[in-house]
């Protein structure tokens, strides 16, 4: 397990570069993000451990970061004062090359368009999602959600579909191809607080109760099945949804003891995802839909936890998978000011993966 200490700053998000296989961006904030400034660390993974390549300081806390998909040197961050900044590693100075200040409250999420790669989205406590282009001085579009929007993401399968999860326990799917009528591109509003079907039951005899609405803090699209996304929030349950049948989750993953702060589907395996939580652990899960991968085991079927990493000593706030090389490597960051790079197979029981 490789480790880097972001001394004095507490981690909020970590993202692998999509261009360079040994580069990480880490969004951090002083004083746990309560007050003070923020810092973006650019780290490199070497044979001798993790080294600092560059760092950028900001006036306010940084809550999320996203690498540009077009330019390997650019990275966007969302800050606590509502500003969105674009940094360039190849530039000389330590200041941003672009600074947009349109959100009125904390920016909690940044997500780059993975298909056309020319735009990115940010979501904020002010109840809006804004679309930006690196070249434009102002936002392209604002999508209202009317609720604190903790997470937003472009679908990895379409350049026009943006999803978000909010404090009011709903998933919103926006399709930018729809005409901009009063619905503001909103095509689906999915309540997260439904109940998953119990296998083997009929509706008549077994009605699991709806769960209570609770704030949803994170979500991610499955990288292989284009209608599946997972959400995690304050009720500690990770739910996977199929947007074609939004009435209820496909699966419920229970195991975290406190709220789920960040989750990410594996780019290598269609059924594996990883989550960081306020219970200070990072857990690896399978949603039970694949055979012959991490999810396969002769006796165990269905959605389940595959392993748990307990090395963090504060809330685990950022997780990301490595896109290159071996398929199990992940990076995680936490309020304990450490960035850990490790292989999920080290925390999984030996029989859980591969023949």
């Amino acid at each position, binding site marked *: 397990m490789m480790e880097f200490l972001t001394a004095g700053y507490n981690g909020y998000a970590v993202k692998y570069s999509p261009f360079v296989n040994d580069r990480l961006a880490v969004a951090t904030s002083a004083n746990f993000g309560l007050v003070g400034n923020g810092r973006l660390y650019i780290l490199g993974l070497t044979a001798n451990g993790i080294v600092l390549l560059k760092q950028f300081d900001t006036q306010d806390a940084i809550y999320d970061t996203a690498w540009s998909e077009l330019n390997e040197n650019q990275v966007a961050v969302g800050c606590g004062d509502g500003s969105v900044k674009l940094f360039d590693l190849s530039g000389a100075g330590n200041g941003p090359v672009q600074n947009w200040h349109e959100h009125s409250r904390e920016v909690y999420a940044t997500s780059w368009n993975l298909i056309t790669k020319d735009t990115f989205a940010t979501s904020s406590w002010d109840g809006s999602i804004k679309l930006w282009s690196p070249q434009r001085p102002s936002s392209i579009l604002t999508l209202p959600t*009317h*609720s*604190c929007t903790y997470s937003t993401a472009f679908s990895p399968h379409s350049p026009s579909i943006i999803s978000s999860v909010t*404090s009011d326990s709903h998933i919103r799917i926006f399709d930018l191809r729809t005409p901009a009528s009063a619905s503001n591109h909103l095509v689906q509003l999915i309540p997260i607080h439904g109940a998953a079907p119990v296998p083997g039951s009929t509706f008549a005899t077994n009605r699991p109760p709806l769960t209570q609405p609770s704030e949803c803090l994170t979500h991610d699209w499955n990288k292989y099945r284009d209608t599946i996304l997972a959400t995690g929030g304050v009720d500690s349950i990770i739910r996977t949804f199929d947007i074609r049948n939004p009435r209820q989750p496909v699966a419920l993953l229970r195991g975290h003891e406190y709220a789920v702060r960040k989750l990410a589907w594996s780019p290598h395996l269609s059924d594996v995802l990883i989550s960081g939580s306020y219970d200070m652990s990072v857990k690896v899960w399978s949603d039970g839909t694949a055979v012959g991968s991490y999810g396969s085991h002769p006796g165990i079927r269905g959605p389940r936890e595959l392993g748990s990493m307990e090395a963090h000593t504060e809330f685990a706030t950022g997780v990301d998978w490595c896109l290159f090389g071996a398929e199990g490597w992940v990076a995680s960051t936490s309020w304990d000011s450490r960035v850990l790079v490790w292989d999920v197979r080290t925390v999984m029981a030996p029989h859980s993966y591969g023949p």
Partner: protein
Amino acid sequence: MADGMCGPSNPLQNFQKHSTVDKTLQQDRLVSRPSPSQGFRSSPGPNAGLVDPEFEAFQAGQLPLNHGFQRQQFPAQSGFNQQPQPGPSAAWVSDFQRLNISSPPPQFMQPPFAPQHAQQRHDTGGWHQDFARQQSEIGNAVQSMINMSGQTNSEIRYSPLSGISMVPRYSGGFAGQQADMSRAQQKQPEEAFDEEAFARAFEAAAQTEMASKEQESQHEASQQDTSQEQSQGIEVVQDIAIDESVERLTGKRPLDKPIGADTIDDPKLDPKINQQQNSPDALARTAGQLLDSVRHDRSIKFQNSQFLELMRQIRDKEVTVEGDRIVGTGMNNDNGAGGVEADGMAGRSGAEEAIKVAS
């Protein structure tokens, strides 16, 4: 409403009304609909003359529709999902296509996303504009929602029908009755055409049309639960959840009560809030609440947590937030680390986020 239900050929009259309902997405305005005694049609539309002879023939039982009629959806809804209906459905579908009930002819087999607006458009003149005024703007997004969920649903339950029920939750009125018919229709695939349920649904809609929307969904839910053989309890209850969400689709919030971060007002909008909430007492109180919520946790990690230690210090007023720094007050437990000028209001929001640990 009630006057339209008299007579032995009641279901067929209702069928006629089905075929003229507005299914467009251009439902941009919310206006209370005209009273039900006026009926569903405000004007016959350009195709009125064409339809009548075919309809007379249909009522006389001479159109080749009898075999499929009992179990099928109505043509106005045929645009919704065609792919999951194989076999005998195709026959009546083409039959209805031949009828001049609507123009342009409904476009079947549409791919779900892009042309969904095209297949909704029944531009048949006068009545269309009238209803365009009545439907809410919500219908637009909701119809798209229906298509997305309905196109790939191959269950007999015809989820688009229940999806349609989303529309009345916001617009009420005519669409509400339409949805009630739709809900009643859910039983059709399994059973013969149930006139009683139809009539019941109409009565229910007439009674509750002016009542609150909440009561309406509950009423129908209980009706559906007790009257259906195949209990679809989960689906109905989930419908209520979805319906209530959709009801406020463009409103402020889909929940009755905002939770979590939504309960905290923006300090920039109301300076008074800023004064109150940024006082050290409020901060200490918040820190105390957070510690209380994790007090039961005896794990080593939580005992040794630096963050919870900071919370303890804030609660005990050993440190406090001033501007953009954390400074010690009397004791020398200073955790200050930030020196850059920044907007100190971020402190409040961060602490509130931390409260989410064990909500």
